[in-house]
Every structure is written in C-alpha cells, then in structure tokens.
C-alpha cells in the first residue's frame, strides 16, 4: 500500500521504510522553532527540571521574538531578556523584531521534506513548502531540544482536490475559510490536510502559505502541499534546496476526499466567535466596526499589502476606524516601502506598525475595548481574542478588511464607493 506525503516524511524522519497512520514512531526533527510566547518557560524547565541539561543540536533551534514586540511590560521584557541571554550564550539563531515567526521560518529556513516542531499552533504553515510542521507545547519542545527527537503519532490524511481558479476579488483566505466552514472546527482533528490538483497552479506562494497557515483552525495536525515549479522558484530565490520533495503515492489511503472548485468561492467572513462560523461577506454587510487589521502570519505578506493599498489608494480610512497595517516581516516591510505601499497606507490614515503578531495576538498592540468590533486578517476570532471579553472579531480577506476600514462598516471591495 502506498504512503501519503505525511507518512513518507515521517518514515524518513523515523529512519524506517514505511509507516502507517495510527503508528507511533520516534522521529528525528529537522528544525525546532520557539517564540516569545513560551520560550521563557522552556528555559525555566531546562534549568530547573533537567538533571543533565544539554542541547542535542544547536543548529536546529530557531528562536524568534514576535508576539510582544516592542515589549509592553517589565514582565514581557524580563521574558525576552531570558530568551535573548540564553540564545546568545548558546549561539542559537535568534530573531528579534524581524517579523512573525512563521514568516521568518518560510523566508529563511523551511525546506521541503523537513519535519519541524514549532512552539506555536500555526506551525502547520510550512506545508506550503512541502514540510511537515506541527505545533507543540513547551514541554514537548524542551524534550525535542534536549534529544533532537520526539514521538509522533502518524496522522491520517484528508485530501483536498482543488480545481479552477479564484475569481477576481476573491482570495486564498476566502478559500481556506470556506473549507474550514465546510468541515468544521474539528473537521480535521489530528489529521493532515493535503492540497493537490490543477487548482494549485493558480495559487502563488503567498496564497499557499495563507491556506496552510489556517489549517490548525480545523483541528489539523498539519497541512501539506506538493513542491512544484512555483514552490521551487520561491526556494531557489532564497538559495535553498529541498531536503526531499515528496508526493502521495497513487495508492495512498485518505480518510476523506473533498473537491473544491475555486471558481465557486466567494468573499467570506467568519463571524464571532468561531473560525468556522463562515458566511458569504454580503451577509455581514453594514456591521459597524471600530478597528480593522491587515497583517499576521496569515495575511501580512506583500501580496496582501498590495491588495490593501490598491483599495485604499486615493481614499481615506474612516475617521472612527483604527486601521492597523502590520507587515509580517522586515523583508515584506522593505518591499512594501520600495513599492510605495507604505506611503499609500500612511497617506490614507492607517496605523502602520513594526512586523509582529500585533492585533491577531490581541495582547498589547491595537487591543479593542468593551463593545468594540474588529474585522481582521488574523487567525482567530474567539471571544476576547483581540481584547475585552465583550468585543467581537470578524475574520475576512485583506480586501474585505481594507474596504471595511474605509467604509466604517463591513464592506466588500467591489461595493466600496469611489
């Protein structure tokens, strides 16, 4: 019986010929990413709970400060200092203020075929480059850090066949929200979401990253995509080669298969308080908003900023809306600067912040207050996610978010008045 992409990657990491869904294997990890959400806890455990603290392979570690930067309290500052001092002492690759962790990983590290643990749930992002990335807690992370290995339950795979091409004004975010809406917030629990089909050809890297990134919101362990010319071009431009490019065998077994015709996808909004509470955007029109957010590991890339700038050019942000625009990395920021996009956002009255998790994380930058409404390109809209428990978050595409920021209420780009 053939293997799925996920099974092949795990088999290779376990040093065995083949694996089957349901097996548990000990695997060698290629990369271990941790951010300022939990690294200080990992460090505490490293010092306090281990008889013989050691790190199996320093070169595998990547530590990134992205959630609370610039620091918002002495407590945050102390946790950053702990992380920074440890990274410095052990010569761990350390990125502070350079961008959101998953964006840094995609720009600088991820290679097809790798098995990556990240101490952050959206580690599933790396499937856009055919790598198996999955989120773990700080204890699992510590174990992997010390041994270079971990145990892994081989997940089943759900296959998504993509056909056609997204219509004008409809984006990858609308597609993945539609998929999550269809299968539900538990629809892919513990499973791999594998995306294939001729529809993939119409999806650029930014689109693929957006799709894989959100899969954890359907409960997925990870997401995977095949490595085609588009992915290879992205890799080559960054001077990287695949570890190995895999595809699911023709006789691999999938638990479910879905087909999505991209031509049928429409602009989508995920209503409060659930990512799968998905409706066509036109059903949410007119809801007054207080804040809008364009950014995050899901939609903070150059193509997203281009969409936003195109809509906002010559327009102003509504006077009663706070529109935060936050590029996902320094690289994205500089490219946006060079293309004149940042200038357009500033001219329109947006609030442009340094690359970081910002409003999506909802902890210290652009938080919303009691009774306020946010429309966001972030990953989650759970109750209280962006600030006060009595606030509401709608998730939508960069286009819908930007149009709403101009209108002062939920609005799609095609309906926005000149």
């Amino acid at each position: 019986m053939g293997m799925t992409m996920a099974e092949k990657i795990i088999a290779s990491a376990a040093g065995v010929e083949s694996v089957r869904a349901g097996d548990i294997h000990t695997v060698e990890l290629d990369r271990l990413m941790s951010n300022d959400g939990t690294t200080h806890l990992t460090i505490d455990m490293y010092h306090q709970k281990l008889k013989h603290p050691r790190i199996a392979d320093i070169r595998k570690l990547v530590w990134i400060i992205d959630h609370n930067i610039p620091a918002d309290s002495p407590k945050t500052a102390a946790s950053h200092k702990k992380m920074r001092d440890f990274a410095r002492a052990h010569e761990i690759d350390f990125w502070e203020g350079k961008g959101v962790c998953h964006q840094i990983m995609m720009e600088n590290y991820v290679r097809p075929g790798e098995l990556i643990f990240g101490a952050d749930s959206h580690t599933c992002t790396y499937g856009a480059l055919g790598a198996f990335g999955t989120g773990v807690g700080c204890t699992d992370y510590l174990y992997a850090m010390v041994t270079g290995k971990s145990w892994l339950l081989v997940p089943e795979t759900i296959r998504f066949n993509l056909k056609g091409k997204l219509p004008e004004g409809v984006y990858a975010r609308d597609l993945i929200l539609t998929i999550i809406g269809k299968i539900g917030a538990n629809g892919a629990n513990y499973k791999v979401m594998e995306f294939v089909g001729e529809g993939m050809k119409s999806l650029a890297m930014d689109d693929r990253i957006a799709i894989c990134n959100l899969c954890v919101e359907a409960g997925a362990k990870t997401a995977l995509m095949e490595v085609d010319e588009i992915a290879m071009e992205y890799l080559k431009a960054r001077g990287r080669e695949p570890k190995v490019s895999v595809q699911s065998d023709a006789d691999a077994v999938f638990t479910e298969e879905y087909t999505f015709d991209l031509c049928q996808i429409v602009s989508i909004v995920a209503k409060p308080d659930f990512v799968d509470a998905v409706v066509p955007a036109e059903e949410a029109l007119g809801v007054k908003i207080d804040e809008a957010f364009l950014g995050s590991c899901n939609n903070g890339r150059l193509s997203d900023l281009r969409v936003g700038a195109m809509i906002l050019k010559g327009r102003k942000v509504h006077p009663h809306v706070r529109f935060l625009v936050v590029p996902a990395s320094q690289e994205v920021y500089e490219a946006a600067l060079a293309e004149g996009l940042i200038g357009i956002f500033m001219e329109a009255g947006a609030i442009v912040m340094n690359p970081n998790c910002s409003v999506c994380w909802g902890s210290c930058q652009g938080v919303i207050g009691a009774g306020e409404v946010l429309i966001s390109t972030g990953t989650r809209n759970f109750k209280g996610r962006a600030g006060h428990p009595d606030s509401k978050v709608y998730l939508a595409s960069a286009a819908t978010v930007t149009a709403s920021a101009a209108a002062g209420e939920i609005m799609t780009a095609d309906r926005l008045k000149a």
Partner: protein
Amino acid sequence: MGQTIIEKIIARNTGMDTVKPGDIVTVQVDRVMIHDIFIPFVAEKFEEMGFTKIWDPDKAVLIYDHLVPASQVEDTRHFRIGDAFAEKYGMNNVHRSDGICHQLMTEAGYVKPGNVVFGTDSHTTTYGCVGAFSSGIGYTEMASILGTGTMWIKVPETIRVVIEGTLPSNVTSKDMILRLIGDLGADGATYRALEFAGDTVEAMSVSSRMTMANMAVECGAKCALFTPDEKTEEYCGISLTDAERGLVGDADAAYCREIRYQAEELVPVLACPSQVDHIEPVSKLAGTKIDQVFIGSCTNGRLEDLMMAASILKGKRVAPYVKLIVTPASRLIYQQAVGNGTMEILSKAGAVITHPGCGLCCGRTGGILSDGERVVATNNRNFLGRMGTSKVEIYLASPATAAASALTGTIMEPEACRL
C-alpha cells in the same frame, strides 16, 4: 524700560502697555491642546463645572498620541470619551493617529508667533520654538479655560540664554539643552521664562529649536521663547508682522539672570539615570554596554533627527542583541522619511519602526525594559521607573549619540552628524 519676549507677548495679549514680573493678569487664550491620556478627566471636570459650551471650539485641539495604538483594553475608553466630547461640543480639530501632540500643534499650523497656548501636557513649552507663549497645565485648569477662554497667570521673570558661535559637527541642540539643564538644575528655571538668543540659535532650524523649547520644562521653566525669523516664516507658512518680528528681548529689558555659551566649547552629553539634570559628557561613559536605543518623541522624533540617525546608520547594522526602536513624531514626518529614503536606511540597519506617537517615552509600552537593562533614548525624561522597573537605566541623548550607540551596543560619541 525695555521688555523681555514674554512681557511683550503678555502685554499685547492683555491690552496693557507693559507688564512686569510678579503681576497677576488674565490672558485671552489663543489655542488649547488636550490629549488622549487626560481627555476623560477634562470632560468630567468641564461638565462638573457646569459649562454647556466651549468658548470657541475652533481654538481647541484634541490629539490622541499616548495611547496609539492601544496597549491596554481600557485605553479605548479614552478614544470613546474623546470622540463623544468632540462631537457634543463641536470640536473639529481632532487627530486620532497623526502623531504626537506637540509635533502636530506647530506642524498643523495651530500655533503662530505671539500666541498664548496651554496644553494638558508638561512639554507644551515646545511651541516657544515659533515664538509663542505656551505652557502645560492640569486637566481641571483646562476645563476652566474651555469654558471661559481665559486663564490667570503670574508674569514670570526671564532667564536669558545666549549661545554664540558654531556648534561642533557632532553636537546638536539636544546636547545644548541638556547642558543648560545640567547647569541650571531641575528647578533652576522654576516659574521663569527661558529666552534664547545668539547666532547659534539663529542658525538652528525650527526643528532644533523645538528640541530646546520642549525640554525647557525639565529645568522647571514656565515657557521657552525663540524670536520668530525667516525660518519661522517658512515653517509656519506665514509672513511675519512687525509685532511678531519684534518678539525679541530689548537691549534694556530686565533679566533675572543671563547665561552665555560659546558653541565651540560644547560636547555631546547624556542625562544619566535617573535625573534629567545629571549631565555627563558622552566620552566619560563611552564603552558602557547598552541593551536598547530609542529614537523618537516630541523632543527628537522629527525628520532632521531621523536623517541624522540614518546618516550614521547607513549601510551598517545595529549591534547584535541590541534593539533600535524608531518612532517618528508625526504621520507627515513618517511619509517624508519614506519619500526621501530615510526609512529604508533605518529598516535595513535593523530598526524596529513603529507608528508615530509617544511610544516608549511615556513608558506604557513600546519597548519596556527589565532589571539591569540600559537604554539610550532621545526623549525628555529618564525618571526612575519611567521605562520599566526601577532597575532600568535610562540615558537621554541626541539622535546622533543614540545612533552611534546602537551601532556598537555601547554608549558611543558620534563622529559627526551634519547633514
């Protein structure tokens, strides 16, 4: 007998021929500035006082800057109250994310030479850079001005500060004002007006004068004053009247003190933890390890400051494990810095660039530090606990010193910063 600048402004404003220090007079207020952090209190006191309308809504300006972007859930309450107050009382001059209050007041043309202006922030002395009498007050006082359009003041004595000569290439107006504060002490100018003159001052840009007027409150001054000239005309987009041109201290005016400086003798300096008047030459502390640099604030967040930093950082990178946070003082400055390539230089050097606002200076967010950390900052205060715990050391400096220090990760004297 001749008059000082502040005496001339107050006399003209009150319609008297002359005034003298110690006189208690009532001035007609030309403009007021209220910012986000205190608007809820101003609004409450205004209504508690029983006022039903603002004396002249066009003379009031409401600016959100300390809380942009909101870092705590309760911050947005200030925006809601501010917006509601502005709407109820017909205020149209509202800036919700355009930058720091003191930058906007002159940049957006709200203050002209000879104006009498009050604001709910101590650094309201800043507008003296264009020859206005401007000073900080509390929110209760502001509420009474909103209702009456007037305020009682005691005419202050004036300390005249004369600076002559050419500044060395690595010395800025920030070093000059820090030196003065060190010489006068934190209360050396309490209740007094600081009047600046001399060819060094005349050669300074309005932006550089702004830095000095901004920090005047740190030696206790009521206000700072610079004579309006052609640079003021260009900055404000006006043509000066004779009266405005005449806002210069008369040769026979009475000053309580005169201090003179020779510009060539000045050196780059720092205000050391934790007092603004604890001044030392940068060279004395060179080599001290630092963790962070902050370039921004109403003191030194202008285009001239960003460009000064960029000229030092160009083609180089901030030292490893050191953070450089850059927060421009206004939206316009940010756009100008984008347009002339300054932002690109700063980003490529590794700067963390945030939206225009008070940022780290007011110490609520924006780069807070913890025990044992050191920051070199271009803002105006380094009080204990200002930017984190009371075991954080804050050194105030010019943008040139700050940029040079960011490169080495240690306190560093800049080589040159002439643009």
